[in-house]
């Protein structure tokens, strides 16, 4: 089940909103498609980012994938636990596997993202 409080970007990142702070991660679909995640290249705290911009990379045993930010703002925290335990992104993508917290530049941007229901439909439409 996809948590109902999340919003999703088409590149399979999610956002959880807490006032003007957005926690960002990658979706369960994304972690499953990547397979065992072995290393993450995370953004630096303090950098300002624009929606859709590359903020990091996920390396799995199979491939490399870009992390795009679903919102604009300033990176205020990153999940340093992932340095030693990247596999948490596989086991708990919507919880302990969060990637970064971004202080939003424009909270209205979040309205542009898919709801959980829309994302589920989006995933279904990607299957053939």
């Amino acid at each position, binding site marked *: 089940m996809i948590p109902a409080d999340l919003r999703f970007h088409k590149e399979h990142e999610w956002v959880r909103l807490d006032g003007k702070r957005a926690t960002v991660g990658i979706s369960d679909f994304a972690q499953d498609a990547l397979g*065992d995640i*072995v290393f993450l290249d995370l953004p630096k705290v303090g950098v300002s980012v624009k929606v859709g911009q590359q903020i990091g990379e996920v390396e799995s045993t*199979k491939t490399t994938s870009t992390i795009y930010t679903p919102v604009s703002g300033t990176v205020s925290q990153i999940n340093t636990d992932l340095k030693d335990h990247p*596999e948490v992104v596989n086991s708990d993508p919507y919880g302990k596997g969060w990637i970064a917290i971004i202080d939003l530049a424009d909270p209205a941007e979040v309205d542009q993202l898919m709801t959980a229901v829309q994302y589920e439909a989006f995933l279904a439409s990607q299957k053939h």
Partner: protein
Amino acid sequence: MQQTPLIAQHRAAGAKLVDFAGWEMPIQYSGVVDEYHTVRSKAGLFDVSHMGRLVVTGSGAESFLQRMTTNDLAALRPMQAQYSMVCNEQGGIKDDIFVYRLARAGEFLVCVNASNREKIVSWLTDHSRVVPDCQVSDRSPEIAQIALQGQAARAIVAAVGLPQLEQLKLRESTMVRVSNVECLVARTGYTGEFGYEFYVYGPAGPVWDKLLDTGKSFGLKPAGLGARDLLRLEMGYLLYGNDIDERTTPIEAGAEWAVRFEKGDFIGKPALLTQKQVGVSRRFVGFELLEKAVPRHGFTILSSSSPQSPIGEVTSGNLSPLLQKGIGLGYVSPKYADPGMDFFIDIRGKAVPAKVVKAAFYKRPAK
């Protein structure tokens, strides 16, 4: 997509199936890293039936294969195997293979890569036409291939009721029956671990089930192609299509040990001899990254001098679960190829420092 006789077993085990060289194959079951550790510490069971299996027979078979491959078949006793290569006239590698001299005189089993099967079948068949008494037959559909790899393999085969396999030395093979199915079992593999490969001359399902059921109490799990690739990378084993192809030669690829110039004529010999005399323009190396990052096939290798200039290309790479470092294989100009030398890997625009190390990256602990 083609399927191996074990497709039902893979589905039942919940494998993630992918298209590999036109075959629907398990890339993973429990997870690549978990399967990797299982093979390194206990044992894993791999379906490698997608590979090609040819039988070459006749009184002309031995001299024919001597001409078609680079290693020396004269060194093989009956039921012994060797790694070898099939080259074109330019010395380019058409395939890297395993050749088994079977028990009956004039019979050889040749195991080829899945992606090269059709090419090698036609190459050998075409060349065999002018050879008296030499038949090449593609037996891939009727022989399955299962690899049991890992230190627990010895105890597992004993528990299956095959204690005679414990005596087999590396690259030796013998005929046994498992679940009443005839199998050629060899002490070979592609993981760097102690292990066996079963060539199954009959229904493969009962053989797979028997090994897996018996092996469970020893920690045996099915393992997929993802783990297999990590395991072979840590050993520095070549992967056709990634590390070698028809544009690379065994000399460049560091596989000169599998080329026996003294054995007589073989296809590619003049070109390879010339290259050996003149010298190669690139050499195959293993390297590890000095910062945490993951090198991948196709990345450019840069000199450490300034300005940094391209000196080679990565052909395989991943994060080693054992070393927790990015490791890779690739070709560089010979002057950068000695162990300890520094260069950089261009990882999407970032130059990450690396140094040449001896592949294998992993050495099996002595018992």
